[in-house]
């Protein structure tokens, strides 16, 4: 597993060296979301018995985790593919499981770091509870891993930066924005409530929010089951791609 350690170290060092862009910038974006939405909307509004601003904070934290975990693994892979430096990780004796685990772990770690950053800058704006902290940790990890793995699939599949941008803008962004970050899905018409239940990101945000307030749209056990099942499917696809050398080894 020595290859795994070195690859993980490299991936962490890679985003940490440009931390202003990879960690600080998304934290600022989330802070802006919070300030704008909470000042525009009625601050007295309550969702599931929780103040709107408090309700929104866990959603923003989880959204940051998911988006940044995806961005990390996908951008690392596409950059190294386009520049040709991917050869440095293809020539050594690194197995496909090690490869996958290292990229996914680094991605999840960046997601969690950004999430913690968002928590730090937003927690002073509205009171938060910690009704079930274990669920907070579980969804941090599962959410980061899921989107880190998804980023690996996208990074391997995409041949060009604009293909990856398409993935990000037309899939990841809508899935996260329409997942209940800014609202409870119970406030949606019935049809869209049903549609939301097909979005795995909804369960990540809902389960994560349960950790704070002890209330959620879906049961946290169900959310965890959906998260793990999605992780299993996405990880299997990524592992199959890596094992076959798809788009990496001709």
């Amino acid at each position, binding site marked *: 597993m*020595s*290859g795994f*350690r*070195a*690859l993980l*170290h*490299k991936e962490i*060092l*890679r985003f940490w*060296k*440009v931390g202003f862009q990879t960690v600080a910038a998304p934290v600022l974006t989330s802070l802006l979301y919070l300030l704008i939405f909470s000042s525009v909307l009625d601050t007295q509004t309550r969702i599931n018995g929780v103040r709107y601003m408090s309700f929104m904070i866990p959603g923003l934290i989880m959204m940051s985790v998911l988006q940044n975990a995806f961005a990390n693994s996908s951008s690392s892979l596409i950059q*190294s593919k386009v*520049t*040709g*430096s991917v*050869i*440095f*990780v*293809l*020539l*050594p*004796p*690194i*197995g496909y499981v090690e490869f996958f685990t290292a990229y996914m772990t680094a991605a999840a770690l960046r997601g969690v770091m950004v999430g913690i950053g968002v928590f730090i800058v937003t927690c002073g704006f509205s009171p938060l509870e910690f009704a079930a902290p274990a669920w907070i940790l579980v969804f941090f990890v599962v959410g980061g891993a899921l989107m880190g793995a998804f980023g690996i699939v996208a990074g391997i599949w995409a041949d060009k930066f604009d293909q990856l941008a398409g993935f990000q803008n037309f899939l990841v962004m809508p899935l996260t924005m329409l997942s209940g970050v800014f609202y409870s899905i119970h406030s949606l018409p019935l049809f869209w409530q049903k549609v939301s239940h097909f979005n795995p990101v909804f369960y990540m945000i809902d389960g994560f929010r349960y950790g704070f307030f002890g209330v959620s749209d879906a049961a946290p056990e169900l959310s965890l089951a959906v998260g793990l099942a999605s992780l299993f499917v996405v990880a299997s696809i990524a592992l199959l791609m890596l094992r076959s*050398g798809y788009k990496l*080894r*001709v």
Partner: protein
Amino acid sequence: MGTAVSFQNVRKTFGALCAIDDISLEIEEGEFFGLLGPNGAGKTTLISCLAGLARADSGDISVMGFDVVRDYRETRRRLGVVPQELVFDPFFTVRETLRIQSGYFGVRKNDAWINELLENLDLSQKADVNLRSLSGGMKRRVLIAQALVHKPQVIVLDEPTAGVDVELRQILWQFIRRLNREGHTVILTTHYLEEAESLCERIAMLNHGRIVALDTTRNLLSENANRMLSMRLKNGNLLPETLRGRAVLDKGAWVFRLNTLEDIEPLLAAVRESAQVFEELQLVQTDLEDVFVRVMHANEGSGEGNPKRGLE
């Protein structure tokens, strides 16, 4: 000494293009081996299959007795590849790059060897500089250091001196020769045939994905011997009667083709007997470039019927 690298009936196609067409080749441990051929001959594809960057359609490739597909961890640990393209990771300094690369191969606490590499490749001053800030030649040195960071038994250099200055070439070859003397097997592809001639003990020439010549450098040169004697004479450069018809006039000099070196003496004697005086006398030896051109030319003739041309 055993076999360092073995290719057995290796074939690789890209769609309709046949990049490697049934190549079998064995390279001995400790050899300095040259892989030559024009662009698109299949050299880089062959190296890619060896290094696991590409997968052969059929055939077997082994490194130090290990199969490159089945035992890929063993083979990659024993291989150090300097790629042809000037690639680099823009996030890291030279030292970070080499430490990370060591880690990929499971080599920890490698600073002593990393320092030796930096020194031998004249990179010590740049150890803490980001790769982005380095010149092309310096980046090339880092690529070489990266390939050697785990002390591989087999070193593969794919056009390592393409576009680099004389100084780096000398530094590089001095270092690679030393590693070869210490027992490392070296496989080199290059367009600089004089490099191959002076460095490689044995050479394979590839064309259209096939081996068209495989022999020791010495044999290739002697079997394709093409010695010529060139002379210019004083007093009007008039050739003696007895020698006329045996030489051709090239840029003001009479050029005689020699079968053996013993052919020289009768030519000189004939000139002396005619009381002529030499203004200039030169023995022109065959070099690898002549052999290369001749082999490729001969092969072009026989390969015309093959619609599948190789690519790199």
